[in-house]
């Protein structure tokens, strides 16, 4: 393959060189257990403290409010199950979320339903936004938790988090947000936005896969999820994922420092992609344009199916993703695209391109050269396509 253009940064990102360099010592010479008392143990502990400090700083939290986890999914599970199970003891057994959350949140809520919790799944509008007044109206006496994602992973819509945070704080209901896609793309301030808990994941911001963090505001008490040793202030057992935590710290610092410039650059690339892809006939943009991640392009092409599209793009050296059910081997296409009102057929033919720090204008130009040809080709062999 001559050319490789990676446009799937919402799926995962390349580990940055600085992150990799930061990690290597902890995968080689500095292998001490952070709980150990001797030199290399203390160094490991100090390295984790430093990473915690960096993560905290990037979201305007305090260092002791940050807990490291094994991934974004664990952060979501812990926040939601931990809060729900804790508050159930006080008779609060109601949770509010939205229909288009990531499966880490949706499936967690569904498993809590089996435990006897009641969950309200708020619908979203056709542009892909949750309405703060819907949240407000759904809050009940026995509501334990509101969990609404910061930005949607498929269509990139940024939710009105500060407004929802305010409502929850006023109504004294805990507010969790899955910010896995927003971190590094949007400047987040957990204090100003009244966020009680926030999930993030390393591999979306150029740290490795398999490390995440949960911010829990000081004073908020939730049940433990992972029982074990005294790590993470007695709140999350398990020997710390040392090298990856150091990597996450470095990645958060990088993301935080370069955020505005990156966002400005990517917004231009994103808009170029959107504007030009929409020139292909019978094509629609999924998700509103206004409050949208600088990284996200999500377009549906009538008459074609997403997996074939991805495979042909791959043959041309372009990596993207799709809301097609065929991609996942499941029957239903993306629950997110269905949630904003797409028909099954058109949802199948959707393409998500997600930009990242390392993309260039040449990448975009190349994609814009390849995609129209590929769409045309698939449409030519489609029984449901007629010009």
């Amino acid at each position, binding site marked *: 393959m001559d050319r490789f253009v990676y446009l799937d940064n919402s799926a995962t990102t390349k580990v940055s060189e600085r992150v990799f360099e930061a990690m290597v010592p902890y995968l080689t010479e500095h292998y001490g257990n952070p709980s150990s008392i001797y030199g290399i143990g203390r160094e490991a502990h100090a390295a984790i403290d430093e990473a915690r400090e960096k993560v905290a700083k990037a979201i305007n939290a305090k260092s002791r409010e940050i807990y490291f986890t094994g991934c974004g999914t664990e952060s979501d599970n812990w926040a939601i199950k931990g809060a729900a199970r804790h508050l159930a003891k006080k008779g609060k057994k109601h949770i509010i979320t939205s229909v288009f959350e990531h499966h880490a949140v949706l499936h967690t809520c569904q498993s809590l339903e089996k435990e006897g919790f009641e969950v309200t799944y708020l619908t979203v509008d056709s542009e892909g936004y949750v309405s703060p007044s819907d949240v407000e109206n759904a809050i009940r006496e026995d509501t334990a938790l509101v969990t609404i994602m910061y930005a949607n992973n498929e269509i990139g819509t940024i939710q009105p988090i500060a407004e929802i945070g305010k409502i929850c704080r006023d109504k004294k209901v805990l507010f969790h947000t899955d910010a896995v896609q927003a971190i590094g793309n949007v400047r987040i301030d957990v204090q100003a936005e009244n966020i009680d808990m926030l999930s993030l994941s390393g591999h979306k911001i150029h740290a490795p896969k398999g490390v995440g963090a949960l911010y829990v505001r000081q004073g908020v008490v939730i049940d433990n999820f992972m029982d074990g040793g005294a790590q993470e202030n007695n709140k999350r057992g398990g020997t710390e994922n040392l090298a990856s935590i150091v990597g996450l710290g470095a990645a958060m610092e990088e993301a935080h420092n370069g955020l505005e410039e990156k966002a400005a650059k990517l917004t231009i690339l994103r808009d170029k992609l959107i504007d030009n892809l929409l020139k292909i006939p019978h094509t629609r943009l999924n998700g509103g344009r206004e409050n949208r991640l600088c990284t996200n392009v999500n377009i549906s092409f009538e*008459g*074609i*199916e997403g*997996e*074939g599209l991805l*495979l042909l793009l791959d043959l041309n050296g372009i990596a993207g993703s799709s809301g097609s059910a065929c991609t996942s081997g499941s*029957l239903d296409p993306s629950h997110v695209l269905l949630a904003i009102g797409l028909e099954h057929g058109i949802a199948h033919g959707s393409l998500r391109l997600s930009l990242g720090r390392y993309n260039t204008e040449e990448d975009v130009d190349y994609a814009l050269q390849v995609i129209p040809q590929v769409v045309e080709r698939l449409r030519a*062999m489609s*029984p449901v*396509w007629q010009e």
Partner: protein
Amino acid sequence: MMYSAKVMEHFASPHNVGEMPDANGVGEVGNQKCGDIMKMYIKVENNVIVDVKFLTFGCGAAIATSSMATDLIKGQPLSEALKLTNKAVVEALDGLPAVKLHCSVLAEQAIKAAIADYYRRQGIDPTPIVGEIEDCEACHCH
């Protein structure tokens, strides 16, 4: 999930793609809700399939099985074409990932549907020859 080299070959350069205005048998199976639709055109002369074309809305496996299935029945007598099973198509493609096996059923069905259409156009009741063509829902939408 990984496709075999054979699948990718047929997906990347599918054989027998397109419409056929002068077909004398046309079958369409599947539905867009399920995710895939296959349309098969055949031209039959003296009970032999002298030409075949397809259109597919579906995944890589759907396109590759369409391509392979059309290859396998082209030039065959109808009686032979009716014996084609999805298993044979899958084997000819060096296998399919488990989650994609259902896609291959569609090709078998589309051929049967096209042959049934051919018989119907000839004024022959296809049911005793072709059998019932199961509904897509039954075949893979479980």
